[in-house]
C-alpha cells in the first residue's frame, strides 16, 4: 500500500507540474483558472491517498474544504472575467 500511495502521489505531483505550465503560459485568464482549479483537484487526490497510507479520517475536512474552495474560486474568477469584459 505504501508503494501504491507513493506512486499515486508522485504521478499527481507530475500532473500538477503540467497544469502549472499551463497556468504560467496562459495565455488567457480562463486558461489559468482552469489550470489552477485542476491543481486543487490533484492536491485533493494526493491528500486522499495520504489518508489511505495512514488509515485515518483526519484528512476528510481538508478534502471537503479543498473541493469547496476549488469550486467557489473558479466561479468567482469566471464571474470576474465576465464582469471585466462588460466594463
Amino acid at each position: 500500500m505504501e508503494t501504491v500511495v507513493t506512486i499515486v502521489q508522485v504521478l499527481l505531483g507530475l500532473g500538477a507540474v503540467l497544469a502549472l505550465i499551463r497556468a504560467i503560459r496562459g495565455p488567457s485568464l480562463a486558461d489559468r483558472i482552469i489550470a489552477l482549479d485542476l491543481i486543487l483537484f490533484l492536491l485533493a487526490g494526493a491528500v486522499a491517498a495520504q489518508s489511505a497510507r495512514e488509515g485515518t479520517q483526519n484528512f476528510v475536512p481538508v478534502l471537503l474544504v479543498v473541493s469547496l474552495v476549488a469550486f467557489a474560486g473558479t466561479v468567482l474568477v469566471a464571474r470576474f472575467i465576465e464582469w471585466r469584459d462588460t466594463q
Partner: protein
Amino acid sequence: MNVARGVGAGLMLAGTVFSVLAAWGVVNFPSPVARLHAATKPASLGLALVTLGAGVAAGSWALVGIAGLVAVFLFVTAPISGHLVGRAAYLAGHAGNLVYDDLAEADSVPLRAGEPYRGGFSSARWVGMVVVWMLMWRDASVGTAIGGAAVAAVVETMRSSYPRGANRNPRGLVVFFWRYAAMVLSSNLRVAWEVITPRNDRIREAIVAVPLQTVSLPAALLVANAVSYSPGTLTVELTDHPMVLYVHVLHFTTTDEVRQQVALIERLVGDAIT
C-alpha cells in the same frame, strides 16, 4: 481485507491515470474551451476514483461514505464551473477556432429563478436538523444546540427560497443514473484517447444550439449537467424564453448528430423527473 486493499489500490491508480491525462490535456489542447473538456470530465472522475479507492484501501466505511459525498459534490459542481468558465472564455473572445457557432447570434435571456418552494420555512425540519447536528457532534450541550440552530436556520431559509423540486419517478431515476454512469465512463475514455493520441487535427470545435423540449427548470439543469458528462460535449450556455442549450462539441460533424445526442439525454431525464 487484502482484497479490499487490492481493489482500493486499483481504483486509486485508475483515478491517478485519469487525473494525469486531464493535466496533459489542459497543456495540450488547442483552446480554453477544449481544455475545459479535459479539466471537467477526467479530472472529476479521477478525483472521485482516488478518494473512493483511498476509502476502500483504508478499510473504513466512514471514509468511503465521505468519498461518496465528495464525488457527488464534484459531479454536481464540475459542470457548473465548466459552464461558467466556458461562457466567460467565449465572451472574452477566447473561444478558439470554431468551425460552427450558434452562440454568436443568440439573444441571451437570463434563466428565471423558478417558482419558489411551496412549503416555505418549516419549523419541524428546522428542529429535525438541530437534532441531527447534535447527533453528529455527539454532544447535547446548550452551545451545540445554539450553533446547530443557527446553521439550520440558514439552511432552511435558503431552502425555502429555492426553486421547487421536481416530481421524481424512481424507475426512471435508476435507468438515468445507470446510463449517466456509462456516459461518464465513455466520455472519459474518449477524452483520454484524444489526449493520448498526440495530433490535434481531429479536434473540430463548434458550438451548437439545441432547443429543449422540456419547460421544467430542474429537468433542464439535469440535462445541462448530463450533457457535460456525455462524450465530446460540454454545456456552455443555457438560455430561457425559449429554453435553448448551447453545447460545445470537440469533434463536430453535423448539428443533427449533436441534437440527437442531447435529445436522447433529455428523454432519459424526462423519464426520471418532470
